[in-house]
């Protein structure tokens, strides 16, 4: 049942895209049911779609590339726009001549917010000799499920999400801002404008734990103190106990590293208890799922976030990008950081392949490490070869009463971290040049 439904829908939206794109994304069965029917067709029949892009020239073979995102399930708030932008970027690249004169053919994998599908599809991609690169994964947990498999099979992975750092893999490139790039301006702002006592509410998986380790170290350096930490599993939406504990600890600032749809309830219940009058919230993850749309303005007013990208950024690349996105997906919500990094990732890979003159993985890695700057919708980005992370601009913004982001100030070309907090550094052109691992912080 699920197989035909998925494939049918995807083909329909493929045709829509090649004519006049509509907002119909490729979606298939949802994730929540898997708990009950492990052996059902829903697992085996996820939407694996081989896209047939336009024939480029009669004799140029396409370069196969892949994207893995959670298009359905609890993380679809992130995954659906990311997959849509992936598709849009490939179309755009093909329209402007492809890569090395060859068209790109995108293989889309919907991982349905299930970690095990990341491993499975990574195996499939790994076994597929044609696929040269993957731009995918949303949570750090999903990246860690896919990365070892992909890099063992010699596939490049570009990871577009903001994340906690610690990646030390020659074949992985991290697009999104890391904790150092985002939490430093947030902590500095909070200490100057709100207070010195912090309470951390974080998602209970690798991102939340590592981000909290960073928060503790940054807060200490800024002269503040962390008065409490609460880790919340991804499927919890009853925050009564958390809110009671926050009131006992009486912080001035909440550092909220919440992830996913269920965690939005935190901001709602926090405001319902009247706590948002006196306690400021700063967050490096709020807004990635368009929380400011789902929540009411009274609940989100004054929350401060830090990202590399905001839709209101005023530069020509952003204007062109937004116009193209709105034309292709007129019903989509506001654009946040993650889909932009998908666009950046594909273009950085394209430039590296063209510099290297081939899709051979080691040549492309060397070209990436030669730090070719790219002008993306979020400004100038350039790869830092030592950490495989992007040096990019980071802006602080706050949500106003009209649910829009008002940029407070922008810091240009912020360096990413080359060290994992409390642990060793990662030097991918030096001591770690054949490393395929992740370094975890000592908390």
């Amino acid at each position: 049942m699920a197989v035909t439904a998925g494939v049918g829908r995807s083909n329909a939206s493929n045709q829509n895209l090649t004519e006049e794109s509509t907002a119909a994304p490729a979606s298939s069965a949802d994730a929540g049911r898997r708990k009950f029917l492990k052996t059902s067709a829903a697992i085996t029949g996820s939407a694996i779609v081989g896209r047939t892009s336009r024939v480029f020239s009669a004799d140029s073979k396409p370069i196969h590339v892949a994207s893995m995102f959670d298009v359905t399930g609890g993380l679809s708030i992130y995954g659906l726009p990311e997959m849509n932008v992936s598709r849009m970027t490939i179309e755009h690249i093909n329209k402007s001549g492809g890569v090395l004169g060859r068209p790109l053919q995108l293989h889309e994998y919907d991982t349905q917010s299930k970690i095990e599908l990341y491993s499975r599809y990574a195996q499939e991609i790994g076994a597929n000799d044609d696929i040269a690169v993957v731009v995918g994964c949303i949570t750090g947990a999903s990246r860690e499920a896919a990365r070892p498999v992909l890099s063992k099979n010699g596939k490049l992975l570009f990871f577009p999400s903001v994340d906690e750092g610690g990646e030390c893999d020659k074949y992985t490139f991290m697009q999104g801002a890391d904790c150092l790039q985002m939490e430093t301006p947030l902590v500095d702002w909070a200490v100057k404008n709100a207070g010195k006592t912090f309470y951390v509410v974080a998602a209970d998986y690798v991102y939340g734990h590592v981000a909290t380790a960073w928060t503790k170290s940054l807060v200490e350096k800024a002269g503040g103190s962390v008065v409490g930490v609460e880790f919340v599993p991804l499927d919890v939406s009853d925050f009564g106990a958390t809110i009671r504990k926050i009131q006992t600890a009486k912080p001035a600032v909440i550092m909220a590293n919440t992830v996913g749809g269920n965690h939005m309830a935190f901001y709602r219940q926090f405001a319902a208890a009247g706590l948002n009058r006196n306690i400021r919230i700063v967050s490096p993850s709020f807004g990635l799922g368009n929380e400011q749309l789902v929540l009411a303005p009274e609940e989100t007013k004054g929350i401060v976030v830090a990202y590399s990208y905001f839709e209101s950024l005023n530069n020509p690349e952003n204007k062109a990008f937004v116009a193209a996105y709105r034309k292709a997906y007129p019903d989509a919500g506001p654009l946040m950081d993650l889909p932009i990094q998908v666009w950046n990732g594909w273009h950085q890979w394209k430039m590296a392949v063209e510099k290297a003159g081939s899709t051979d993985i080691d040549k492309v890695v060397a070209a990436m490490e030669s730090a070719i700057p790219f002008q993306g919708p979020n400004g100038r980005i350039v790869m830092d070869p030592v950490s495989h992370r992007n040096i990019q601009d980071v802006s602080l913004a706050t949500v106003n009463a009209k649910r829009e982001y008002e940029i407070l100030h922008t810091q240009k070309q912020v360096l990413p971290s080359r060290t994992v907090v409390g642990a060793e550094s990662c030097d991918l052109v030096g001591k770690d040049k054949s490393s395929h691992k992740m370094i975890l912080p000592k908390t």
Partner: protein
Amino acid sequence: MDALVVIALSVLTSIAILVLTSLGLAVVFGLMRIVNMAHGEFLMIGAFTTTVLVRSAGLSIWLAILCAPIVCALIGAVVEVAFIRSLYGKRLIDTLLVTFGLSLILYQIAIDIFGTASPGIGAPAGWVEIGRYSVSYYSLLLPVVALTITAALYLLFTRTRYGLLARAAAQNPEMASALGVEVRRVNLWTFVLGCALAGLGGGLLSPIVAVSPGVGQSYVGQAFMTVVTGGPAFLLGTLTASAVLGGVANVVSQLFTNLWGLTALLTVAIILVRALPDGLSGNWSRQL
């Protein structure tokens, strides 16, 4: 001292949330033995009804919450006639498969209509100060509402003619129809009641959670656990099981972290089902 009061109130709220999200399933599964995998989607429909009516039609939130069960009742009636009617008394797995498919369809329809991030509503009525804590009025309202609904259902099933017929038709349909009960019509009403209760639960939850098409899915597992642990007394058993499971989860969350709270809930459920395989109300004299 005020911390204890606030914790106690928080426990009551958690129990109330469990009750409100499980009562619909208690009627459909506990009484009629229909494994309703679409229970989460009915919660979601109720939540969206309330949210949309407040945001787009400008209704007061209380009126919008009351409309949620009506919408779910209508949809439930259609579902019952189209899908469930032929499944009474069949194997559990048949109802499971049918309602599973239904839940996928409803979920996808919701995504197509609302998208993944649609504007929601905040909690009404403000907050109250208790010592150095502040608690939202709405979270105090939920236990009162949950108790009222349970009491009303109890009266419905024990004091009214419909209640008697519903229980008869569910427990022994052949004998009931031999005695002149219109079993098909009564079962339709009972299923519709179950869906309406799910919708009401969803509507009541909508101001305190983020309403999205997947919002019901995180409650289905706990609802099934609560109803099964509750046992054959589908109303009072579910209430007792909610109190035990919800209470344990909240208290452990207060003392430790949310993860331990969830673990404690699951552990207690496992122990209860192992120790009392017929459920908490297995050997109660009153099977209601």
